[in-house]
């Protein structure tokens, strides 16, 4: 499903997204947001809590249409679900009633791949994410990190051209998280999938991405985009100590801090 590399993989073209709320006033999550995702890049989106980062991803996936503006995939306007994407959710979205093998094979089976063939490629992906021997386990029998691996294999088995990740590792402990980040980078290199990674953790964003996009406090729009010129391959745990990393961190944090403060002041007003 690869296509023209020169055009951006995904474009958000002056996109606004409003949600109806119970008090009648629509809530504006995104306002006039413009963003291009280059083919093959790793783009991280950071922003304060509740700034519409996840909404940006649901628009890119076509799970929700924008209220105003347009989402374009390979320069074509997107209608309905985006067929090129894989999506990793913030919370567990693996099916609790399916064991690991059935979970990973779910995608191909939905798309009518014969059962034998689906199981063969599922076993291959289970091995790639390091879960050999756990094929027959149900999600509740696995640790949080292992469930993330199941979700990763479930998403990557389609070899999606565009990979959308919504704070996928935020629920993990620090060690497991660093491990998963390194593995994600290794897989990203071999798959060469365009990746959009949403996180509230600026360190994670810089360590992983080619570019970091900072969103403003809601309604979100793009505050700034930074090229991350750290050499690859990167080792997530070590790259944080490089002088260039620290420099980039300071530069972007100046931008981000301002937005975080705005969002913090608002929540304080809400609670008092």
């Amino acid at each position, binding site marked *: 499903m690869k296509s023209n590399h020169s055009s951006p993989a995904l474009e958000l073209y002056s996109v606004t997204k409003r949600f109806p709320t119970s008090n009648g006033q629509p809530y504006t999550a995104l306002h006039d947001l413009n963003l291009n995702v280059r083919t093959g890049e790793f783009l991280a989106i950071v922003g304060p809590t509740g700034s519409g980062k996840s909404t940006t991803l649901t628009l890119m996936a076509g799970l929700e249409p924008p209220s105003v503006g347009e989402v374009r995939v390979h320069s074509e306007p997107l209608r309905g679900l985006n067929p090129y994407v894989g999506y990793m959710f913030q919370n567990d979205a693996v099916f609790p*009633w399916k064991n690991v093998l059935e979970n990973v094979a779910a995608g191909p089976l939905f798309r009518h791949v014969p059962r034998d063939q689906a199981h063969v490629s599922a076993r291959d992906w289970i091995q790639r994410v390091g879960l050999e021997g756990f094929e027959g386990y149900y999600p509740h029998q696995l640790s949080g990190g292992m469930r993330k691996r199941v979700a990763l294999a479930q998403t990557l088995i389609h070899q999606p051209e565009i990979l959308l990740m919504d704070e996928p590792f935020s629920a993990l402990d620090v060690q497991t998280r660093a491990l998963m980040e390194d593995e994600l980078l290794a897989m990203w290199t071999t798959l060469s999938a365009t990746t959009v990674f949403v996180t509230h953790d600026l360190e994670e964003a810089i360590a992983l991405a080619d570019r970091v996009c900072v969103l403003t406090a809601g309604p979100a729009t793009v505050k700034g985009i930074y090229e991350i010129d750290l050499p690859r391959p990167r080792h997530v745990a070590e790259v944080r100590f490089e002088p260039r990393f620290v420099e980039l961190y300071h530069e972007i944090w100046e931008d981000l801090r301002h937005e975080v403060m705005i969002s913090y002041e608002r929540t304080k007003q809400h609670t008092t």
Partner: protein
Amino acid sequence: MNAQNNTQLETPRRLIPSSGEDARRQVQARRQRIVVNILRVLVSVIFLSAWEFASRAQWIDPFFFGQPSDVVIQIWTWIIRGTAQGPLWEQIAVTLEETVLGFLIGVVFGIILGIALGRSQILADVFGPYIKAANSIPRVVLGSIFIIWLGLGLPSKVALAVVLVFFVVFFNAFQGVREVDRNLIANARILGASPRQLSTDVILPSALTWIIASLHTSFGFALVGAIVGEYLGAVHGIGLMIATAQGTFNPNGVFAAMVILAVVALLAEALVTLIENRLIKWRPQPVSDISF
């Protein structure tokens, strides 16, 4: 990929206790089970002997209250000589047939309509008020209508059981569908599930926990439907036996029929639990395993 590392870092949650500790815990658990069983038997022995004694001492009138030994004799007589309506097993078989048929039909309709209305906002909006209104009627009174429409045979009892079972299952299935995790649906859609696959592969298994919880109560309702139907008018069945015993001022007969019903209901309950465990084996074990 460093697979060895990962599996060492993250062992599965199900921990295996050391064998010594395991054995000690088993002994302890067994001892507790024995104590509980002894106490359970003791409760019924005290209750039954108090009843027996009170009626033999004429503290309560055995003509109205019966006595346990006569109840046992009554059951024995039914087994050996048969009831006024024919052999005992035939009455049990008739009641069970009505119950099981009513249960199955009610469950199937309840699940289908519950999922349909849970999935479709327009259907829910249109039919919601009617279903609520129908649910508020004390449905046992429909038994009389069913007997007028369908006669004294099996169909009228099945119809009453269906009506009783349907609403319990329907509301649970409906709620189960409404409670399905939005993330799971979004995930399945992205993975390529069609609307039909969403229903069968995501929504139904997800709602199954709710539906199965309703099966326990609804089998009881099916039995109530069959018994009340027979009581209102029938030619066979345990409900008719109760009605006959009532008509002849035979309290022992009523109690004996109740005992038979209790045995039937408990066996059915065990069967539902068995099906439940088979269907939702993916669920984590409940924290406490007290069984009634």
